[in-house]
């Protein structure tokens, strides 16, 4: 296992404690508060039972009505119990909302830190699920399940103590049999937990069989495969259901054990008390109706809270699933590093225009890490060389960028050009990053669903003149004049822009802003060659007074650039793996799989050549992709 990943062996509890401390979720305080209130409520209820049974005793044995003190006692204790229960409800819902909001803030924080580098790794649906469901699953488990867990332990002890106080014989009897319950439950429960998980997986499989075919409806229509697939689904479901039922038959035993003991405890206690009252049995001290009734009312409390725990058991399974997704995202927090402090690019947009510094970056021993690794401490602490850094995905001895440089990054697809750019742009943890804000031009230009004006301005405001001028510079003025409402035309689903035009729009966006460093990640990748040439020329022209770092595998004139960086992987074997994987997986999973024991084998490296390469060498890279 790679060190930087959160080890799977870390239990849910341990992880949750870490998160709690790191993000100050206040889980512990909420937990204790809720447990205390609920226990007090149940304790009042037990006192209420005392008064109730006393009055019943008065009625049946003494044939007298209830005394006033008893009635007030009953009223007060029941009232207290009721009010405390209400307080518990209020506490639990407010705690839940609080924790969810805090978690969401942290998630948003992670998004802002890692931005596109993180988002592009998974589908939108995945992120929505993480956001909407996994956070909730974790919060539910952390608050509702754990509260119930604690209550299920404390309350029976209370109840047992009271029963002991009333009649030690019954107390001993219950004390002897009760430990069997958790023991039995653990034995059956462990088996049941494993089976529960299998059941969960089985339901997921049933679900995914169905969802796959749903998503493939047009394909099934094309192949006229619908009926066969329906038959297949039917078979598979029946099969799955039969197996699942075998599995859950055992899992239900753990529930039944509880039910068994709870029911039997009440029944046998009732019989014992009855017989004692009748004089048939005389074990232990004399028992009265009041005591008997009190015990009868209290015994259910021994196991009722545990039964409630069984009802929310599914929350644990869901929280485990949620942890698997959330742990890597939040790992920078649990490693106790303040991410926000370290990433200077995201600081308030104070421009570091120090006139004497033409050097934007002078890096020695630059390393780039996995997206979920913690941001390493900046090399300002020079003697930290012995610190165990996570294994690097990209490594180079030295790299320098001066202001106004035009740098071309080349390399086979999947070799890590994007990683390098992400590191320099501050979206990926690495040892060095630019201290100024950068502008990204990515492969797929983003058009937001708003007006043209909103697309260009985003959150800033620019005058219409500035917007028109920017559009003119990127040669989109003709396009703009054809639009029905000019700058206020809304971009719809079937966009008014072709691929090349959309890239020009993103260039216009970049022009409007003052930041001088442009990171271009294969902006012409999806364009045919003629378009590619035109757009490349435009970029070169616009970027004359900016610092450009351009990653491209298509041919570009070498005389535009003054530095050439080549990113390559160190073994050929890894190349083959990376090339056959889809874009999103390439570079990441293969790299992580390739790193062995912290050694830099399989890691990409950057070589810099500052002399111009001849044209032949550049053209060779055309047919990769």
């Amino acid at each position: 296992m790679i060190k930087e990943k959160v080890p799977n062996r870390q239990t849910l509890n341990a992880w949750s404690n870490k998160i709690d401390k790191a993000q100050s979720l206040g889980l512990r305080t909420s937990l204790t508060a809720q447990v205390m209130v609920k226990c007090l409520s149940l304790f009042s209820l037990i006192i209420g039972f005392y008064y109730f049974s006393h009055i019943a005793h008065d009625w049946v044995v003494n044939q007298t009505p209830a005394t006033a003190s008893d009635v007030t006692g009953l009223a007060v204790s029941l009232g207290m119990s009721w009010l405390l229960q209400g307080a518990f409800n209020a506490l639990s819902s407010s705690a839940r909302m609080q924790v969810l909001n805090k978690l969401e803030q942290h998630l948003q924080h992670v998004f802002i830190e890692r931005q596109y580098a993180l988002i592009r790794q998974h589908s939108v649906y995945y992120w929505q699920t993480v956001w909407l469901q996994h956070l909730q699953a974790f919060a539910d488990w952390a608050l509702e399940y754990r509260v119930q867990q604690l209550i299920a332990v404390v309350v029976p002890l209370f109840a047992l103590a009271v029963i002991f106080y009333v009649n030690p014989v019954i107390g001993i009897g219950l004390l002897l049999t009760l430990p069997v319950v958790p023991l039995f439950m653990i034995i059956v429960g462990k088996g049941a937990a494993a089976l529960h998980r299998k059941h969960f997986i089985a339901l997921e499989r049933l679900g995914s069989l169905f969802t796959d075919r749903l998503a493939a409806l047009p394909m099934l229509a094309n192949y006229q495969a619908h009926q066969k697939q329906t038959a297949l689904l039917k078979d598979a479901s029946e099969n799955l259901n039969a197996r699942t039922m075998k599995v859950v038959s055992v899992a239900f035993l753990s529930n039944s054990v509880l039910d068994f003991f709870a029911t039997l405890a009440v029944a046998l206690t009732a019989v014992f008390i009855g017989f004692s009252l009748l004089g048939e049995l005389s074990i232990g001290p004399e028992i009265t109706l009041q005591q008997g009734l009190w015990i009868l009312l209290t015994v259910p409390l021994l196991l009722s809270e545990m039964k409630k725990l069984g009802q929310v058991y599914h929350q644990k399974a869901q929280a485990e699933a949620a942890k698997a997704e959330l742990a890597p995202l939040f790992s920078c927090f649990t490693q106790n590093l303040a991410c926000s402090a370290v990433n200077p690019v995201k600081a308030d947009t104070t421009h570091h225009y120090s006139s004497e510094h033409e050097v934007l970056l002078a890096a020695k021993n630059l390393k780039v890490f996995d997206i979920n690794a913690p941001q390493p401490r900046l090399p300002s602490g020079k003697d930290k060389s012995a610190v165990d850094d996570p294994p690097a995905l990209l490594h180079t001895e030295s790299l320098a960028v001066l202001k106004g440089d035009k740098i071309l990054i080349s390399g086979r697809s999947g070799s890590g050009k994007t990683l390098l750019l992400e590191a320099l742009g501050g979206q990926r943890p690495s040892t060095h990053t630019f201290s100024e804000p950068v502008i990204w031009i990515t492969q797929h230009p983003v058009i937001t669903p708003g007006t043209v004006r909103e697309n260009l301005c985003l959150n800033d405001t620019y005058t219409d003149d500035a917007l028109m001028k920017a559009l003119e510079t990127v040669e989109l003025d003709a396009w703009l004049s054809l639009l029905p409402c000019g700058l206020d035309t809304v971009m719809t689903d079937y966009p008014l822009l072709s691929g090349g035009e959309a890239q020009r729009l993103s260039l216009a966006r970049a022009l409007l802003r003052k930041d001088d460093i442009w990171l271009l990640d294969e902006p012409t990748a999806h364009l045919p060659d003629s378009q590619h040439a035109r757009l490349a020329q435009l970029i070169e022209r616009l970027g004359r007074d900016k610092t450009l770092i351009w990653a491209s595998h298509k041919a570009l004139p070498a005389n535009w650039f003054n530095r050439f960086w080549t990113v390559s992987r160190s073994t050929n074997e890894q190349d083959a793996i990376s090339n056959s994987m889809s874009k999103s997986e390439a570079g990441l999973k293969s790299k992580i799989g390739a790193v062995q024991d912290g050694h830099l084998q399989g890691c990409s490296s950057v070589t810099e050549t500052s002399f111009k390469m001849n044209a032949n060498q550049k053209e060779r890279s055309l047919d990769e992709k």
Partner: protein
Amino acid sequence: MKSKPAYLTLLLALLHGVAGITILVISSWFIAISAIAPIGFNYVIPAVVIRALALLRIASGYASMWVGHNDLLTRIAEGRLLVFSQLENSKITDKAFTTEALAQHTETLASRWIAWIAPLSNITFIFTNLCIVAVWFDLPSTSFLLTLFVIWLFIVVLQGFSGLNVAKKATKENKVFRQESADFLNCSAIWHLNKGMNHMPKEKGRHAINSMPSADRVWRQQTTQKDKALRASWWFQGAAFFAVVLVMSGAVSPISDFSYMPIAIVVPMILMAAPDWAGAAFHSITKFAQHKQSAKALKNLKTSPIKVLERTELHHSLTLSGYTAKNRRLPLVSATFPATGIVCISGPSGCGKSSLLQSIAGVVPPTGLKEVDGMRIADGLIKNWRYVEQEPIVLSGSVSSNLDPAGMGIPLDDMTNLLAQLGLEALLPLSMWVGKAGRTLSGGERKRLALARAILSHAKVLLVDEPFEGLDVTTQHKVCEVLNRYAANHLILVASHVTPSALNVSSTLLLEEARMDNLCAGQHAIRLP
């Protein structure tokens, strides 16, 4: 979804509940009467009855769980099969639709018996019978029991209405959040330009891009739903406790002969325990509300039928006039294709290559004229023309079932050979399970698997969308060889913005970009070299 009601589950659950209440009643009466121990009191029978009831309760508990679960699984499967078979030859046109949501809805619908029908009907049944028995035997303090029953009914109905309301709001908020977050996440590449994001303002009324969306409103609705159930159960508990205090104080009820008999404590015991056995109803109401929402969602699922045409053979040529996908603002295509060979359709991304292929195959509705061998053919999905998507779907199943989804009996040797030719040896043996629960395939592997699927079905016309993306040079070569071989007897239209040299392209169709000027100018004939 009409299916046989789950009688057995209901019965067993009822038995479970009744046994529980009866144990409570008889135990308390038994203790009370034992305390005064009247002469000639046969104590053995109640003791035996209590123990028998205990065993009955345990057994019925397990049985009802088992039967209920079995029933649930069967219903989920049946429900899904029904939905699936209703979707034959149609496609889902709902934009906000996700297959996972549909799976969730079918599960909610299937679980209605154990989620809310059984609990609610049980409690109602028990409560009614208790009242009847109490009235019949003229137990003291019966009026309190009746009043509590009325209160319970009232609270249940009230909570039912508010629960439905909240569930409706929750669905709406969910939809809004999904839309906002999708927009937001899709713009992740330009977040860094958005200064507002870095300071995370939460202003209302701004476009979602300029401030982060929040799932807060969705969570709030769900918390409200839970709160309402808790509050209802809390009020009921208060009412029950109040009734107990009133009864025990003896203030309200008249003193009768029965007031001090052991039987007198039965009703108070029931009242005291009422929050436990009757309180479960309120949480079932929540499930009822969710059920209503799921049923509505399923009913409103927008689907559109796919018209399937008969097998169409292509002998001479395929002619398109002014053809493209409907309503997508794409330039029109007029061209003639031969009956065999490879035609490469190239052009930049977004110019409509996929849409064109889809419209030719009949997957999306087209505009324009399509003629096969000179004869006009109608719009619709043609049975033996195959469209291979850009992002093909892999069905959860074995490789062989993926290659032959319709069960036409394609020989396994053919499958193995074709897979080897495409460089997919890693997917052998054919029984290997692929898809969500099995081996995940990379993008390139999926494309080749879908291509193999199409070729094995002996499609007359093959329309392939971007087969070379994500493949390295050697693999592209292999794919080209397979395509070349197939093109000897069939027409293959390949849409790709990259054309490997190994491909025997007989002609190329170059689509211009769907730019504003060529759309506005109207129909454009596209060059065909």
